[in-house]
């Protein structure tokens, strides 16, 4: 039997080559070996491949004997292109495939719970069962009963006390009112005072000289004029340059301008009225002035005959209509006044003779000058001998020019400056201390710093704070003192460099300062704002402080005077008694013998005391043993 393809079939049938008889499942007549046939169902387009086999009846139930057979191709159905007509090709579409678990999404809604906000009005309640709240009598009775309760009484008393306290509190002061509106928020600067080095200007020459004087440009302090010289006696070498420089503070590499004097400049000052003019005092005693517009050479110099005989240590511009007056001081004992338009001769001369005789041999050498433009007739001179001489320029006779002297220092007074806020008080810097004086007290300073280990070489008040001043020492440190805050120690001590510092100048804003060292290095420092902003009440406090100290010194002075008077009166009395015996005055020899005797007595007494002390020590040692 060969089954053939019917026209409605999908695929072709290839009959097996061996058309062996097989029991056809339809006809069921011949038992044949398995053959492949295709059953086709005219209704469906699907293909069913059926494999039919027959079995002999007597072989039913027999065990299966499996055997290997090679692969046989049973069906190979090739597609029929003609059938493609029945199909429509689909547009290529992207189908995502993911190799994951298949999951599904579900939504669940719980049963709705409705909530509502309600208020409860408290109707009178809490009454015990037996009391009817509506019955006035019962409630009153209840209340009366409670009021009789001891507990109630004590509680109410106690609570009442507390309550009263709070009520009174409320009545006393309104805690929410803005009480301190007017006061500004005080910025508590917790910042430690500090000084920061901004720039360092080094002497460009090989042989280093001391930066002996500094002067800020009067207009905005953009420039700094530095005078270089060697102040050590006879240490001037041939290679040493004579030049002084003007530096622009922004450019530390190269000085902006050079000033070429004949002899090295010891001091240098800008004219506060004309920022192009500088006057300088030189080592050989001459004064010269420069105009920065005209070049490095001095415009004019003073004649040698009429100049100082020693280096000019300080030169200051005076307050005058022409703005051309200066005066200079030197250790030769003279203070000379100049008009820069005519430098051939000084306009005035003052000899610092303490005996007021104008004797140059006796004169004190001047190292520093002080002049305050608010007091143009007065000026002060600090001397090498440690005295401060206060002078009056307008005095008629030279003798009257020297008004008074203040003593108290042991060495030359390197700096002398009035307090910009309290001109009656001035600062002196000399030997190992800095002292603050009051003009009225001549015997001693009213305040002073402790004795340091190094010499103080320069000092200056802060132009913005009345109680702050700066000092520099020979060991290279800069000290900033705030006398209202601390008097024992400087408020800030900064080591600027390893060599000695010689000069100091504070800028007018009090914020920056420059200090010059022995090797010609000028350091520009910035002071922290706490030290250069005026604190509230500072002026009042400083006034109080100065007044207090002045008063103290005045009292001490008065006391000393009293004691001296007493001594004098006593010695005069004893002198009167002695006059009967002879000349009361001792001759020098007698004086010397008496002094010698006193001296030896004191020495012997001291030695005896020491011996006794040693004996005692030995005795104690023995005792303890």
């Amino acid at each position, binding site marked *: 039997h060969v089954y053939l393809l019917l026209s409605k079939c999908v695929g072709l049938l290839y009959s097996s080559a061996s058309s062996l008889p097989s029991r056809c499942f339809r006809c069921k007549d011949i038992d044949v070996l398995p053959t492949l046939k295709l059953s086709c169902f005219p209704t469906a387009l699907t293909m069913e491949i059926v494999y039919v086999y027959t079995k002999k009846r007597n072989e039913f139930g027999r065990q299966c004997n499996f055997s290997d057979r090679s692969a046989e191709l049973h069906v190979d159905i090739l597609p029929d292109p003609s059938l493609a007509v029945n199909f429509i090709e689909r547009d290529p579409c992207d189908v995502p495939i993911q190799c994951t678990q298949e999951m599904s999404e579900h939504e669940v809604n719980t049963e709705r719970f409705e909530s509502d906000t309600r208020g409860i009005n*408290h*109707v*009178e*309640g*809490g*009454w*015990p069962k037996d009391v009817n709240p509506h019955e006035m009598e019962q409630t009153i009775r*209840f*209340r009366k009963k*409670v*009021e*009789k309760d*001891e*507990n*109630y*009484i004590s*509680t*109410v*008393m*106690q*609570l*009442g*006390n*507390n*309550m*009263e306290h*709070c*009520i*009174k509190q*409320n*009545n*006393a*002061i*309104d805690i*929410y009112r803005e009480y301190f509106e007017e006061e500004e928020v005080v910025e508590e600067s917790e910042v430690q005072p500090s000084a920061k080095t901004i720039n360092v200007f080094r002497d460009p020459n090989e042989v280093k000289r001391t930066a002996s004087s500094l002067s800020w440009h009067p207009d905005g302090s953009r420039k700094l004029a530095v005078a270089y010289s060697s102040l050590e006696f006879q240490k001037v070498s041939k290679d040493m340059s004579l030049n002084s420089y003007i530096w622009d503070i922004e450019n530390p590499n190269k000085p902006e301008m050079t000033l070429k004097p004949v002899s090295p400049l010891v001091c240098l000052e800008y004219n506060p009225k004309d920022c192009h003019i500088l006057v300088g005092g030189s080592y050989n005693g001459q004064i010269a002035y420069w105009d920065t517009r005209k070049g490095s050479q001095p415009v004019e110099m003073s004649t040698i005959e009429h100049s100082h005989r020693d280096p000019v240590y300080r030169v200051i511009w005076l307050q005058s209509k022409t703005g051309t007056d200066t005066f200079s001081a030197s250790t030769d004992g003279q203070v000379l006044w100049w008009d820069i338009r005519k430098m051939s001769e000084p306009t005035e001369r003052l000899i610092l003779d303490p005996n007021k005789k104008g004797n140059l041999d006796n004169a004190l050498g001047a190292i520093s000058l002080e002049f305050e433009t608010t007091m143009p007739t007065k000026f002060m001179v600090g001397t090498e001998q440690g005295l401060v001489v206060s002078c009056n320029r307008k005095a008629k006779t030279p003798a009257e020019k020297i008004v008074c002297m203040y003593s108290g220092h042991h060495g030359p007074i390197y700096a002398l400056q009035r307090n910009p806020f309290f001109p009656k008080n001035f600062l002196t810097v000399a030997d190992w201390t800095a002292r603050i004086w009051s003009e009225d007290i001549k015997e001693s300073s009213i305040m002073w710093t402790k004795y340091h280990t190094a010499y103080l070489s320069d000092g200056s008040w802060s132009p913005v704070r009345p109680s702050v001043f700066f000092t520099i020492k020979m060991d290279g440190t800069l000290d900033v003192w705030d006398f209202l805050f601390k008097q024992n120690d400087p408020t800030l001590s900064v080591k600027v460099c390893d060599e000695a510092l010689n000069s100091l100048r504070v800028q007018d804003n009090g914020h920056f300062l420059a200090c010059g060292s022995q090797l010609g290095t000028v350091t520009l420092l910035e002071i922290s704002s706490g030290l250069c902003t005026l604190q509230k009440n500072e002026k009042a406090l400083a006034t109080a402080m100065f007044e207090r100290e002045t008063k103290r010194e005045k009292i001490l002075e008065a006391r000393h005077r009293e004691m001296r008077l007493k001594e004098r009166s006593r010695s005069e009395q004893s002198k009167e008694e002695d006059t009967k015996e002879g000349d009361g005055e001792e001759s020098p020899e007698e004086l010397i013998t008496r002094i010698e005797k006193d001296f030896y007595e004191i020495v012997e007494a001291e030695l005896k005391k020491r011996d006794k002390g040693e004996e005692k020590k030995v005795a104690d040692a023995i005792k303890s043993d």
Partner: protein
Amino acid sequence: MCAEVEETLKRIQTHKGVIGTIVVNAEGIPIRTTLDNSTTVQYAGLLHQLTMKARSTVRDIDPQNDLTFLRIRSKKHEIMVAPDKEYMLIVIQNPSE
């Protein structure tokens, strides 16, 4: 004894700015009051709950601690509550303006 209580309460009432005084017991029953009934009842009920809450707050934070006084300042006045185990003293005051 009773007179002292009277005196204290009267003194409190006559202080400057005091609007009203109430003494409430633990159940919320006003024992003494200088205000009208409805206001008293309102104050008593509400403040009682608030005091309880305040006390429990203080105790929650530190069990050794306890509420001693409660002051509520509002725009119009200040309500001061002095609580106790059994009773509570409430004062409404207008602080000094």
